[in-house]
């Protein structure tokens, strides 16, 4: 069957994405210029890394709205610690941010697994608490470029390709996209080729059946929420390094964008379905739409309307797909 490829959600998403790119290019030919495309890819990195974590949570049948708070906490704590200690490295801070995120994710997992609170409520609560603690106990002041650790900025400025314009301005493709690609590949391999990864699909498909077949669901739950937290923590510090700014109030409302991107990428909000490739496409689509709205000078408040609509339409489409499969 030649059309069988379109039974895969990824092919449909890719087709829609291509169509959208052609349309946007027709309205605004500047879309296809290299500096715009490089900028788009750059905007994919942070949201994309967070989306990889959310993808795993959604597949497991859960949901996570706490990760933006965890990302901010990991980022801000790490940078404050670097400043306080006068530390000048790059690797260790990223390890620390990742571990802070993982530890906070483990708290989510504990409530979900042991107390059996539904994940939405758990992560709403932990997210709010982490934000509150951060602002109340650690500080609410922004760390600007003058005090930002220089090594982080230098690291995040590295480029794969750099092109100078004649007029002295410069644009390039950030090397951070390599990190994003490596993490995406890693998550893909975990989901596809490890039993922990398959246990995430099993848990999202039917938790009781997963227990009966012999999966250790405690391990799976801790892995999923821990990984989501870790990826968020990593992305948080990366974000701050890329914009040369550490703002403890950052990422407000980002959970909507990321969940929208993952659902747009074909993951089921009811669990059991989703892929890394789809998520990459979904993230690209969402970032591109946001970006195009900016280019078209549409007010940022209207962007929220568009993102909200994307969540609803994409969820409705996957729900429709899942219903059809069941018949």
């Amino acid at each position, binding site marked *: 069957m030649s059309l069988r490829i379109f039974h895969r959600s990824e092919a449909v998403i890719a087709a829609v994405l291509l169509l959208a790119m052609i349309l946007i290019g027709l309205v605004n030919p500047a879309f296809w210029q290299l500096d715009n495309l490089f900028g788009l890819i750059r905007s994919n990195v942070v949201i994309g890394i967070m989306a990889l974590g959310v993808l795993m949570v959604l597949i497991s049948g859960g949901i996570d709205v706490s990760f933006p708070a965890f990302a901010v906490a990991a980022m801000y704590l790490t940078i404050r610690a670097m400043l306080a200690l006068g530390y000048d490295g790059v690797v260790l801070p990223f390890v620390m941010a990742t571990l802070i995120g993982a530890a906070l994710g483990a708290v989510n997992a504990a409530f979900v697994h042991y107390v059996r609170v539904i994940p939405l409520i758990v992560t709403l609560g932990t997210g709010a608490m982490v934000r509150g603690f951060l602002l109340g106990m650690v500080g609410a002041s922004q760390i600007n470029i003058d005090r930002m650790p220089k090594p982080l900025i230098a690291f995040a400025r590295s480029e794969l390709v750099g092109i100078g314009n004649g007029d002295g301005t410069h644009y390039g493709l950030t090397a951070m996209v390599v990190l994003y690609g490596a993490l995406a590949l890693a998550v893909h391999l975990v989901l596809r*080729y490890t039993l922990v990864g*398959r246990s995430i699909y*099993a848990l999202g*498909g*039917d938790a009781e059946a*997963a227990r009966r077949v*012999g999966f250790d669901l405690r391990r799976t739950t801790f892995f999923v929420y821990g990984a989501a937290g870790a990826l968020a923590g990593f992305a948080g510090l990366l974000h701050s390094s890329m914009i040369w700014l550490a703002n403890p109030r950052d990422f407000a409302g980002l959970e909507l964008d990321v969940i929208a991107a993952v659902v747009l990428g074909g993951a089921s909000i009811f669990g*059991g379905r989703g892929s890394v490739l789809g998520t990459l496409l979904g993230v690209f689509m969402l970032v591109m739409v946001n970006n195009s709205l900016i280019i078209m000078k549409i007010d940022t408040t209207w962007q929220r309307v568009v993102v909200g609509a994307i969540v609803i339409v994409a969820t409705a489409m996957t729900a429709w797909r899942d219903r059809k499969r*069941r018949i």
Partner: protein
Amino acid sequence: MSREQNGAAGAPAVPRTRGRPDPVSDILIELRDIEKRFVGVRALDQVSLAIRRGQIHCLAGENGSGKSTIIKIMSGVYGPDAGQILVDGVPVARLDPIAAIRHGIEVIYQDFSLFGNLTVAENLALGHELREKRRLVDWRAVRTLARRAIDRLGVEIDLAADLETLPTSGKQLVAIARALMSDPRLLIMDEPTTALTRREVETLFRVVREIQRQGIAVLFVSHKMREMLEISEWLTVIRNGRKVAEGETGRFDEASITRHMTGQDLSGEPYRWRPAADGKPPRLDVRGLVLPGDTGGTDFKLEAGEIVGLAGLLGSGRTELALALFGMVPGHGGQVLIDGVPVRLSTVQEAIARGIAYVPEDRLTEGLFLAQSIERNILVAAYDRVTRGLMLDRARARALAAETVAAMQIATPSLDKPVGQLSGGNAQRVVIGRWLMTDAKVLILNGPTVGVDVGSKAEIHRKLRELAQTRGLAVLMISDDLPELAQNCNRILLMHRGRLVGEVAGGEASEASVSDMLRRLS
């Protein structure tokens, strides 16, 4: 006839199978004088049971008779309070689930425990991978393993398909194939035919015989008499936690099994109906009903007090016809008259207001609010009758619900019990009882006794007859269970590809003729 066994006598029975030699080593697993209590209630009382190697053994009993308790003891989920379990003639001190699997005992539960979102191949291989304590998935090995497991059953299933795209029968075959992967010696199947069509049951039986040919014993737990008689070699009947009969299957017939299962003789009177000479128009008069996308119309009449069967293969349009009458297929053509008055049935509300009641095929998902109380489930279609101004009249609501519970003989200590905790038979009575409150004139039942045990089934049939006769209801009964139709209907309509193609009178003789006609149609 079967040998009656007095539960208290306690002598372990060693069954004999069809003239084979009878060495002790022939017995795979034996329960001796097993007792099990749950908070003071005696679930099993001195039950003894022996299963031979490669035997197809049937465990018969009504819901709540202790069948599931026996399964759970054999599979190590429960430990017995007294008695002995012997495997290969050796007493087993403690049988836990893992030990049971090591002894080669596998259970296929009714819900299969499979993953709809994963492929058939992965569903088959997951357990094996976990047992091997693998960390990485070798997809090539998964496919090979799955292919071997499916081939062993001698059936054809697409390994790359997502499991949820398979019909129930396909899922069941996958569950069986998965259970066989750990090379069991005894396969316990809990009510395996409940959701299957006749043809799927035949496939299942072929597979079961294939399993037996490989030397594996099968314990078939069921309450469907016909199927037990067809598949098994040895039959054990339990009632109220006691073994009441056992023996070679050939020594039983439907009547004797029913008698053992229920402890009483159930009436075998076919339903008779005499037209009243009052010249009233028929309760339901369907003229040229055309469903969207269909050609040609359907005509039939139901008189007050009639119970009319509607038989047809799956996909014959039976359910669509019922749904159209219940206002769920907008855009149907033709004319419907109730008591001689033409009515429009384009929404469910209209249909209910005109006196049509529908009991759906799958009462659990379509007919009941499982987490809600009996009272609410009964009143849900009739709340407008228990209002006082804008408010509910709670006292009146409760009184009406209590009346219905009594009229339908629903066994429950309280009106507040969630319907999800009732047995199949009682839950079905709640669905039927609900319609007594709406002054229904035409009652359409789709599979009225699917998943209901014999005793309850007879009760429901008796109730339906009584409703038809005393309230002048016209009943349309859709069922795959031909004996049920023959027994309870004064005539049976046959449907094929959206058309009525024949009609036979009810009674014992009609069963054969209906099944003949169905066979010719397929």
